[in-house]
């Protein structure tokens, strides 16, 4: 409860430019509320003089919490936190009554005034029951990131992080990755430049590479994770501030029996003239069923090297991006044929393999091929990563990142990020962009050197907890756990204050700071005019 009394500060601009609200009326209304020790009208609280005046008033009055009656809380929340700390109070020791946006601008005359009074009443009743949350100011954040992945994406993320002055531990599950990177390079030298820059990165002193490693254990709060790796039988500990998961599928043109696509010389040597390239989705149902430019680029390399070769590409969609639009026309001019198929073509026989399908316009089609190549996707090993870091996997078997509300790249585990590969024709540039933006999210978390923990988070009253595990099951962030006492405990560094556990707890053992059950009930009573 409030011992020093509640301060109510009314911003003269709170009623909007054409002042419909009687701010003086609000002043006298607020001073009549029991427990309000100080009421003050201030001209434009958000202005420098306004802030000084308010800070001085709070310091002078000994109140330990206040209500701001002004415009929307949303745009000024950081300012009010600053005012609170500058006057020696807890940064969350205030409540805002947005009388401008929720009364003056949306209601008429007397109704607006009555709504404003209700909003003030609700804010006072809520802040009256405010309890100082355990606000561990700043937790240290290690300026080192563990990046897990074997391919170019992991390298690109590591590169971006090192460019910003942090160190990186690159953890690879295997030795050197099989197959070719799944990205589309505009030409050979771009591919070489990419591979060269990755090679330089691995020699950068700020990055240590650990090969053939799998994750045994993952503990600790965001900003100070402790990993234990199994590197060829040996246990290797690793500490880092954040983790970026960058599993990357490999793609490869393969024959049906799985061997890689032969070069032009081999084809001539083996007298194979008619080549057909099928998308991986068409035959195996995974990956996509489109004519990706990878097949087109390979076909062009064949036709250039050995004019006699006849290449046909099949697929449902013609996927291409800016400069690749021209690629398709160039391929057609060089005699490479494109066939559209909807669904599964029938493939029979061997040397020649006969492919039959139904074309919506041309009817039943037959094509003979000396060699059939499949654009196959080698999906990366995601399950073990997902299990080790407790990150969910979606129905396509890819790491699930939270895409809603401006959180691309984040996962439900705070401090664990996921760089997602998009099947189809991800350009090398698309990959560099995804790697850059996921690295940026990790840097946003670590770059300030400290992490704010606590504030409006949940806390368990161990006496009342029946250890029913309900909170563990409902929390999207797995913040609650069962502590030594056999009762539930909420790990403050993981809790993001959504309150789902509080609403579920059958024993009412959990409550949340700044939005406690009693505060919500008090606000409802004030809103319904039931407060004396």
């Amino acid at each position: 409860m409030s011992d020093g009394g509640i301060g109510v500060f009314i911003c003269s601009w709170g009623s909007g430019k054409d002042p419909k609200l009687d701010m003086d009326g609000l002043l006298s209304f607020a001073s009549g509320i029991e427990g309000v020790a100080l009421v003050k009208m201030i001209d434009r609280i958000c202005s420098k003089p306004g802030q000084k005046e308010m800070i001085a008033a709070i310091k002078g009055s000994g109140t330990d919490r206040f209500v701001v009656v002004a415009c929307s809380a949303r745009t000024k929340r950081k300012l009010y936190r600053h005012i609170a700390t500058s006057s020696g109070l807890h940064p969350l020791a205030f409540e805002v009554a947005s009388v401008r946006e929720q009364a003056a601008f949306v209601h008429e005359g007397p109704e607006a005034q009555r709504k404003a009074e209700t909003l003030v009443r609700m804010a006072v009743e809520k802040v009256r029951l405010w309890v100082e949350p355990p606000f561990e100011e700043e937790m240290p954040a290690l300026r080192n990131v563990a990046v897990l992945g074997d391919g170019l994406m992991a390298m690109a993320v590591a590169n971006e992080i090192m460019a910003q002055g942090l160190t990186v531990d690159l953890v690879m599950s295997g030795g050197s990755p099989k197959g070719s990177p799944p990205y589309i390079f505009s030409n050979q030298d771009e591919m070489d430049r990419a591979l060269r820059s990755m090679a330089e990165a691995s020699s950068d002193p700020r990055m240590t590479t650990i090969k053939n490693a799998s994750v045994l254990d993952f503990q600790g709060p965001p900003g100070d994770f402790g990993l234990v790796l199994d590197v060829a039988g040996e246990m290797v500990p690793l500490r880092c501030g954040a983790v970026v998961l960058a599993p990357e599928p490999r793609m490869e043109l393969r024959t049906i029996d799985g061997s890689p696509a032969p070069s032009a010389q081999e084809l001539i040597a083996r007298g194979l003239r008619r080549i057909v390239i099928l998308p991986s989705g068409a035959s195996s149902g995974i990956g996509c069923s489109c004519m990706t430019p990878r097949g087109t680029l390979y076909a062009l390399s064949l036709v250039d090297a050995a004019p006699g070769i006849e290449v046909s590409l099949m697929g449902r969609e013609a996927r291409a991006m800016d400069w690749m639009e021209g690629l398709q026309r160039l391929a057609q001019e060089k005699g490479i044929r494109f066939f559209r198929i909807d669904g599964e073509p029938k493939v029979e026989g061997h040397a020649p393999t006969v492919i039959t399908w139904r074309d919506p316009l041309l009817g039943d089609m037959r094509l003979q091929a000396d060699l059939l190549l499949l654009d196959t996707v080698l999906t990366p090993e995601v399950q073990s990563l997902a299990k080790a870091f407790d990150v969910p996997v979606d129905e396509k078997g890819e790491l699930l990142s939270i895409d809603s509300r401006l959180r691309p790249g984040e996962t439900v585990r705070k401090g664990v990020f996921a760089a997602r590969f998009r099947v189809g024709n991800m350009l090398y540039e698309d990959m560099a962009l995804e790697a850059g933006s996921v690295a940026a999210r990790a840097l946003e978390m670590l770059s300030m050197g400290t992490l704010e923990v606590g504030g409006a988070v949940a806390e368990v009253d161990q006496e009342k907890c029946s250890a029913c595990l309900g909170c563990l099951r409902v929390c999207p962030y797995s913040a609650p756990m069962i502590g030594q006492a056999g009762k539930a405990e909420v790990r403050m560094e993981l809790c993001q204050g959504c309150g789902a556990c509080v609403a579920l707890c059958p024993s009412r053992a959990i409550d949340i700071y700044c939005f406690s059950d009693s505060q919500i009930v008090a606000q409802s009573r004030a809103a319904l005019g039931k407060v004396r």
Partner: protein
Amino acid sequence: MIIGEQKRLEEISGMLDGHRGILIAGCRSCVAICLAGGEKEVAVMAESLRLISSLRGKGWEIEEAMVERQCEKEWVAELRPRIEGKDCVLSLACGVGAQTVQAMYPRVRVLPGLNTSNMGAPEESGIFVEKCGGCGDCVLHLTGGICPIARCAKSLLNGPCGGSQGGKCEVSPDTPCAWEEIYHSLESLGRLDLLEEPIPPKSWLPARDGGPRRIVRKEAVLTEEQKRLKGGKA
């Protein structure tokens, strides 16, 4: 744990007719875990009954109280100050809890707010499934750790009955056929040989049919001498 489910509000308000001072007593152990009688459910029940009382002019005065474990005399004894002046207690604990409260406060009528259902476990968050029938003569060692008494609708000792469809019991599509699960469990344990030996007919004396059961652990029972020396409090 013991699993229970709340009675419908209509039935409860019917029971409460003619009473004025009502105390709703919840329990913090089993029924809290199965979301039937914890502090949250007591609050919701209280709100619902107060709404009914105001809407239909029943004049009930409803108070809420929690007991750590309503089947323990010592915990229930703590209710004494809250029960003063009440003419009935609506117990949201399992049947054991309700009976313990009634035994300790003979002049205050105790009404059961729950239908106690079975001994079981949460299958997932919010779904509670019967696992043990309390037959007093366990055969799990013969059935790969799956109880045919509780989890087979016909409690067959040498099933399956052959009526299951798609691995689900003919009685209800949600209930897996226990005997099919027993088969698979024994298969993975590599002990399908246990199925070759039929389980002999079972004596139901240790079960409910032998009358209410009483289990005594002598070493924990205070002797008369000890009770006298301690001053009579059990």
